[in-house]
């Protein structure tokens, strides 16, 4: 702002003298005008920055894996209050909050399944319980539509508590669906086994192993495997009947083994996390629905 700006306003010079308030001095008028310009500047700046907040809406076409029980993307973005209580209750720290450049809402939770999937080791979907606004919910309000194929045919049975009185998870819709995106890399299809730490010794991901401790997830690196035919995705899937190794026919007519995903799949991402090949052979298609 220059302070020696010349006065060019003659329009205010002949103000009628009938008003009790004295006409403003030139200097006052000038400073008022500058103040108005500055105010406009600040308005523009803040609103401009705020518009960047809309990026997640544009990006919402790009599917992100949200915590279990999340409403559909646009409803999820509108109702999430960005407090991170879901982050705090997750025993395996699967939920993270998005940053500025993630382009999906500053402070909005998401799951990067390859790094740390939700393995339901809390048993009761704690993040849903923690959510104060119903962004994550057991009971979707009636006015919100359920996309065809998003609803689970039955409440998923959590293998870990299959023998409990209440073996199911209170989850009515899936987070996504697992899909064998790189069958050529899949060890099962190649008929290979797997020995050692899946994802290597430095992998930070944790998971609950029922044979180790039901209430204490451990690092996957501390739980090496030795399987003659790789079936880690099936072996570690927490949901009953979501995935199995089946005998399929290859294009050339030969028989081979392959993981096959079934309708109960909730899209939690454990299979993606434990898949030993790089990059993963099986991935979660976030927000995907079940197609028969």
């Amino acid at each position: 702002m220059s302070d020696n700006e010349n006065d060019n306003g003659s329009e205010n010079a002949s103000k009628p003298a009938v008003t009790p308030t004295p006409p403003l001095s030139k200097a006052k008028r000038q400073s008022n005008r500058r103040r108005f310009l500055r105010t406009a500047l600040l308005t523009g700046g803040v609103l401009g920055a705020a518009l960047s907040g809309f990026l997640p809406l544009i990006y919402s076409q790009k599917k992100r894996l949200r915590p279990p029980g999340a409403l559909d993307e646009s409803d999820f973005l509108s109702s999430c209050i960005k407090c991170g209580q879901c982050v705090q209750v997750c025993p395996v720290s699967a939920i993270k909050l998005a940053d500025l450049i993630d382009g999906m809402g500053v402070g909005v939770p998401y799951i990067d399944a390859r790094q740390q999937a939700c393995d339901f080791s809390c048993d009761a979907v704690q993040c849903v319980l923690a959510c104060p606004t119903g962004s994550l919910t057991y009971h979707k309000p009636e006015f919100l539509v359920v996309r065809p194929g998003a609803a689970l045919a039955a409440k998923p049975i959590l293998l870990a508590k299959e023998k409990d009185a209440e073996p199911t998870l209170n989850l009515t819709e899936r987070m996504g669906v697992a899909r064998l995106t790189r069958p050529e890399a899949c060890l099962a299809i190649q008929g290979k086994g797997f020995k050692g730490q899946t994802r290597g010794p430095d992998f930070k991901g944790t998971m609950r192993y029922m044979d180790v401790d039901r209430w204490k997830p451990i690092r996957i690196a501390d739980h090496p495997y030795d399987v003659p035919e790789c079936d880690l995705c099936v072996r570690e899937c927490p949901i009953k009947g979501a995935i199995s190794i089946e005998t399929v026919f290859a294009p050339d007519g030969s028989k081979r083994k392959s993981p096959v995903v079934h309708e109960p799949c909730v899209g939690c991402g454990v299979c993606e996390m434990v898949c030993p090949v790089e990059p993963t052979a099986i991935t979660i298609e976030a927000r995907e629905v079940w197609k028969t």
Partner: protein
Amino acid sequence: MSQLLKRRFFEQIKVMFGSEPSKPKEIAPAAQAIHFYKKGNRDLIAEKLHARAHAIHDNKWRNRRWVTLIIANLLFTFSFFLDIQILEGALTASRFVGFHLIDLNSGLQVMLAHKHIINNLIIGTGTVLVLWVLLGGRTFCSWVCPYHLLAEWAEKIHLFLVKKKLVTDQTMDRRLRTVFWVIFALLAIATGYTVFEAISPTGILSRALIYGPGLALLWVLALLFFEVFFSRRAWCRYACPIGLTYGVVGIISPVRIKYKLDGCFHEGDCRKVCLVPHVLDTVIKGRAVETEVPIGPDCTRCGLCVDTCPTGSLSFEVKGLSKLM
């Protein structure tokens, strides 16, 4: 409440929304007498110097406030970090030993955007509403909001630069805050997305303190930079809709600053340290309409004026409590 104070009460609400405080048209006889006594009274100058020389200037309220603010924010951090679960969540929404607490502005934004209100949301916002009505509305700003503390430090740098004549404080139109409030409310309704949360430095900072720093802090830095080099406390003064939301809550709050006319020398030290000096228009010579005037709802009850006043003319008051005791 006298008729004059009632009029002032409503005028102060308008001042909060952005109108400029005006000279009172009518002043109570008791206050009038004091104003008249002070006019051209040479003894007052000696008295003034005396009071100045003996004024105890401590930072009592500021220190209490900073400790409160830091503890409140660290409680969030440590509840998660050490898993002590006292105050889980962030400033936007949390649970205090299980009880839902939801920031009024964030709660409102979600309600407007989502248009569906679940019980926990009502309980949380209701609890916080009652809490801040009791505690003073914008008390939230100065006693809890982490951005306020950073902005206070930035303000010190700004004032230093002003003293060195390197920068000048570029003031803005205070009505802007009301405009922003309306714009962000309308955006939430129209787009179904709580866009203000993306740029709210309060939310960004609170989450950064709890879940670790992120790039969103760049926006907070940009705001601080703007305040240091361009406009003093610009975000809190002219932009933040959260402040206005809590200000509205503070209209009916019993906790406030009280001004006593008789001891005041009208030197304006309080207005110099104040974040919202328009609420202190009553301390200007000849403006007080009564001998005791409560300060309006836009006041953040930060206590800087109480600390700085050499005559003790400004003090904290809980309405009704003094009558009881």
